[in-house]
């Protein structure tokens, strides 16, 4: 195999990797929003449920979740193909982290901001929509980007279920070329290019929407 055809195969895997990452991140986002709202604004039973969900999921390895969904669920009559099982697992795991990110962002809006809204006569929902939410969204951009790159890297776990993503395609090539060092380094380079460019694009977007003196850079949650 020449380098060009190797790259072609790896590119095919990269597309699957990207699909896995984008779909599961989006799915996690949709789950995380109501859960984080429940954690911050819910009544006590809702708080308990949403918080336990976050804590439990964050305590279990992605690989175990994948095995439960892919190998375990058929025993209760639910069967997923490897790709779907991977998306579900990645999505569920990331939803707990994203929920934690949104919760933190909502809570880091200072209380004075809310009091100022009240002092103008705003109602609870108005304060949420016009004061809390816009600030919380800005707070969560950096940690969410970080979370996306984590999901992207974790898509490599789908290898274990036989999804033909980047790492799996690389391994297939190795079985014919016997060049593991070159191929795995190429895989690593491709992951790096994606995470690096994601980070720099978001940073640029952030800069455009930045508010002078109003900064918040989170770390891996």
């Amino acid at each position, binding site marked *: 195999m020449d380098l060009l055809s190797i790259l072609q195969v790896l590119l095919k895997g990269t597309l699957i990797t990207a699909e896995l990452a984008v779909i599961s991140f989006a799915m996690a986002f949709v789950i995380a929003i109501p859960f984080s709202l429940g954690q911050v604004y819910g009544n006590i039973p809702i708080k308990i449920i949403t918080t336990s969900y976050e804590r439990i999921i964050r305590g279990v390895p992605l*690989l175990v979740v994948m095995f439960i969904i892919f190998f375990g669920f058929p025993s209760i009559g639910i069967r997923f193909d490897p790709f779907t099982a991977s998306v579900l697992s990645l999505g569920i795991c990331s939803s707990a982290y994203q929920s934690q990110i949104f919760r933190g962002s909502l809570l880091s809006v200072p209380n004075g901001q809310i009091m100022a809204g009240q002092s103008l006569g705003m109602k609870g929902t108005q304060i949420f929509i016009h004061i809390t939410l816009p600030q919380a969204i800005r707070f969560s951009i950096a940690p969410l980007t970080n979370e996306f790159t984590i999901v992207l890297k974790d898509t490599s*776990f789908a*290898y274990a279920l036989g999804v033909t993503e980047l790492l799996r395609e690389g391994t297939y090539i190795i079985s014919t070329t016997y060049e593991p060092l070159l191929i795995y380094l190429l895989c690593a380079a491709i992951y790096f290019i994606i995470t690096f460019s994601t980070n720099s694009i978001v940073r640029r977007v952030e800069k455009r929407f930045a508010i002078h003196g109003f900064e918040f850079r989170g770390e891996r949650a």
Partner: protein
Amino acid sequence: MIKFINVFIEAFPFFMNGLVFTAELALSSISIGFVIGVLVAISRTYGNKLSYSISTIFVESIRGTPLLVQLFIFYFAFPQIGIHLSPLVASIISFSINSGAYQAEYIRGSIQSIDKGQMMAALSIGMTKWKSILNVILPQSLIKVLPSWTNEFAYLVKYTSVAYLVGVPELMAQGEFVASRNFEFMDVFLGVALIYLVIVMILTWGMSRIEKMVRMPGV
């Protein structure tokens, strides 16, 4: 529920065997990673241009690529250049390096959050730069870094499960071993999940106790 308990009890000896490896992986990797993290953090913050560049490239390339790929490089690719590592050693090396890069970033952030006045005060009583770092800056940063460090530890414990893919007989591998014999995949892996969950919870709880013990009064 009863069936789950039976399966769990039957698999328990295997789980315990696996747990020994999981603990070994996690504890040695977090410790080696800690040493790497401190050194890299210091060289990124206080080092000269060269050591700054090297440590930055290290951190960025490790954090930019998946742990699984790093593990595969150490286990499957290194033999190509004549370095043969056992599954356990390859896992510990790649986990340590990976965790080291993340720990470096946390520690660096924490060092930078220490008030500039601390360094000036240390220099003003005659300490050298390195003495100031060692005696004044680092102790404060390490206390401050504890919450994110705990997070990293929990991540690492969970990520040790990928050692299964290169054949380390840790918890995940034991689960696979048991399930492929009794075909109770659901119950066995729920059991595995439960054990990880308990470990992570004990870890988080224990670290928060330690955090309280070492917290600087009034800070």
